[in-house]
């Protein structure tokens, strides 16, 4: 067996005193010198441990670029991203895979489950890649599946599950490693409202119970209203921010709708 398969767990030691995510003056420019497009134009934000944050913004506002940069899938043009104290720009290319596996969790719009694996195997994937002992893997998978209400479909294949179940399995896969930060890209985008609500409630419950930090990019005001903070992005900058505080979800939803309406108004006025 090649030596790289022997390596277990990560060499990254998270600094528990630092914020989970700290971004300052982030820019990302696409295109050549002649026709540059500024996807991000100086974004700064901080996410504390155990927070549940939504990023909203119209198409082309730069929110997906921001998420890709945080996810270490894309590299920013300037500015810094620190995840639990580690500057992601300083991680070597070979260390990035390791970093993603141990520090980050991903939830995508289409669940991106592997068709040939059962739900149990899909959830276990990040752990097997990290060579966690088998007993521990199976225990963690059962545990997370139970808290997301999908323990009964663990031996099914993706094609045998409903869209909602698939998305919750994807959630379980993102959370099973207990990552510093869970990044969710339109997690409810392909779900009906009932399943979307079910997913968000589970996510909120886990956020509360496990102090999991979640950063979610969404179009959906309902999804955003489940979060504690909502950041609005526009033209590559943080345009405004809402904090839920002691608001009920209903009240918070109304506030979000107002901002979105204002944004839409600005768009229409142009």
């Amino acid at each position, binding site marked *: 067996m*090649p030596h*790289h*398969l022997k390596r277990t767990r990560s060499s990254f030691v998270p600094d528990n005193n630092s914020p989970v995510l700290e971004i300052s003056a982030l820019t990302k420019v*696409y295109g050549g010198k002649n026709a540059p497009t500024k*996807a991000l134009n100086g974004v700064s934000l901080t996410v504390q441990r155990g927070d549940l944050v939504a990023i909203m913004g119209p198409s*082309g506002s*730069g929110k*997906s*670029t921001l998420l*890709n940069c945080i*996810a270490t*899938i*894309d590299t920013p043009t300037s500015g810094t991203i620190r995840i639990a104290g580690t500057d992601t720009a300083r991680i070597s290319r*070979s260390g990035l*895979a*390791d*970093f*993603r*596996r*141990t520090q*980050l969790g*991903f939830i*995508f719009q289409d669940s*991106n*489950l*592997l*068709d*040939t*694996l059962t739900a149990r*195997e899909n959830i*276990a*994937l*990040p*752990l*097997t*890649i*990290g*060579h966690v002992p*088998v007993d521990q*893997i*199976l225990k963690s998978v059962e545990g997370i599946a139970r808290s997301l209400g999908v323990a009964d479909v663990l031996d099914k*294949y*993706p*094609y045998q599950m409903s869209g909602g179940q*698939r998305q919750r399995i994807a959630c379980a*896969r993102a959370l099973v490693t207990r990552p510093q930060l869970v990044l969710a*890209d339109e997690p409810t985008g392909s779900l009906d409202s009932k399943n979307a609500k079910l997913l968000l409630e589970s996510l909120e419950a886990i956020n509360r119970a496990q102090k999991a930090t979640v950063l979610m990019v969404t179009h959906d005001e309902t999804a955003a209203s489940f979060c504690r903070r909502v950041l609005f992005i526009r033209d590559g900058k943080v345009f405004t921010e809402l904090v839920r505080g002691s608001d009920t979800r209903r009240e918070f939803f109304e506030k979000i709708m107002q901002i979105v309406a204002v944004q839409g108004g600005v768009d229409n006025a142009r």
Partner: protein
Amino acid sequence: MLAKLAFGNMRKLMHDYAVYFLTLVMGVAIFYAFNTISVQADFLSNSVSEALQQAGRIMNDLTVFLAVIMGFLMVYANNFLMRRRKKELGLYQVLGMRAGQVNVILTLETLMVALISFVVGIALGALISQLLLFVTADMFATKVDNFRFFFSIDAFVLTFFCFAITFLVMMVFNSITLSHVRLIELMSASRKNEKQFVRHLPLSLALTVLGLILMGYAYWRLTTQGFPLGGSNPEPGQTTTNDFLVTTALVVAGTFIFFYGFAGSITLILQRMKKHYWSGLHMFTTRQIASRINTAAASMGLIALILFFAMTAMTSGMSICATLNKAYEEGVPFDASIDVVDTSGEEKTFDWDAFAKKAGVDLNSVGNTVSFRIGYMTDGEGINMIQTLQEMSAFTGKSIPQGFEQTVAGQALSLSDYNALRTFKGLDPVSLDKDQYLYLCNIDQLESFVNTALEQGFTITAAGRTLTPARTTVIDDNSCIPLNDSVGKTPGIYVVADDIATELPNYHWVLDLNYSVSTENGDLAVKNLQDTIAASDDELYVASETKTDAALEGTTMTGLTSYMAIYIGFVLVIACAAILAIQQLSNASDSAMGYRTLSELGCSEKTIFSSLRTQVIFAFALPLVVGIAHSICATAAVNKLLLTFGHASIIESVGLGIAIFTLVYGGYLALTYRMAHGIVKGAIRSARHAL
């Protein structure tokens, strides 16, 4: 507009499925090149040329047969590619194109593909055939006279028709595919999670075991029963054609059942190895392979069988050659032998010198000669040759070794003729009492059987006298071969006292020569003598075998067999490897997003590619391993059959076969991995979202 679309599609396809085009081109090139054999004949010496002309006709039949298989596999590959383009075809229709117009696009595409691969293939084939000419010359142990560039119209026409038909069938299948799918299915084809064909795991295990049992039973039947040599009217105890068909059906059924169960079985077994399974990408790799085999079980089984056929054709052909060539060496100890049979059975003596004088040949100046008469043992009551082996079997109670049940072994030589032959060969003469016999036999499998009979004092009646064995063992030195007969195997000749031998009926008269003159002059003298004898008396049947004849027959046959074995091997291996390659590549692009997910989950590229490599190698290796297992069994059975003619090493002949397989099959494997690597790498590195 449609043509422009078709052209664009074709270019994209050519890029994505370069393996498919490579195979079409190679197929055309090889079909053309190998069928130029009759034109190649013009460049080679007359003796080989004649054999090649004949080979040309066999090649044509073989090409039609291979074209059917190749065509079938290419149609399969095309259908496979079509299935993957459902969404694209749906899109055309959603945008308002009529089904007929889409069909026109597909037809144009197929025509362009056909035209390009045919033109490139013929050009390549023309080049290959120039080179092949020298290979052919070498294989037939001759030289190329007056080389110039050549082109065979016949080969061109044959190749053209074979491919035209293949492509016509493809077009028909394309329109069928198109007219049978509904638009909604076309459009949603890629969005669905791929349905997994998962078989019940314990059932899979049972199927695998059943498949293995069937294959094992078929192996056992073939190795114990052998081939149906009796044809449609076998002797009792011989393998019948039906027996053989049952064996064939068993191995075919076993192979398919094995492949249907195999995926589930390895999953089940590997899942039991918990530590291994739940570590790294092992579980992913296992599941990918299992899914691949499950969806393609039938085609994998078929590929295994075709590979089996190709390998067996190659190895058997070559070992037949090796064996017969060795037999030629042993069976042609003299520069020439002339063999005269008196069909009237009346002549008691034969005067070689008189005929030589008549032919104007001075035998003494041509070289050393020895002549003798071979008779056959009868008990005096009938004219039938004594069924020695049957009588020995009845006498000792041992059964005749397999394959020799019908062998005739009752020829006889007089002691003085035999001693003359021994002296001629440089051996010491032997002595014999008047009521004794000696037994000549040089077939390994028969010797111990006959020795038992000799030890127990097997007696035989001839010319009214009862003869006992002079020795307890057979004589198996090179005096067993009294004349050039190109097989070199003697099941049994009795040596008896002269006064008995004169009483026995004639079999034939033999003259052996070792030249002191040049081979050309010697052969000429032999031919003169033979013609003279043949012309002098209608009742005399005369044949000759010179070393020159034997050598030519040997190289011609080896050449022909090698030529065809290489042809069959090449075409079938290419077809099989191409199917596997296309399956693997489309599998890689289907799973591209999955690989991307793996990368995002933090799996290193190194681990991902090692999983991909395992998958590709496994897909290529599994049918090959099954094919090789079948082939070893079949080749063993062929060799057992060939033992009748004596041992010959098949290592060298099999070596060439293995080299071709490794080159072609391994080449496709390497190419497939490289391309799959490219697809997966592209998917991993591309951004998930367009901004």
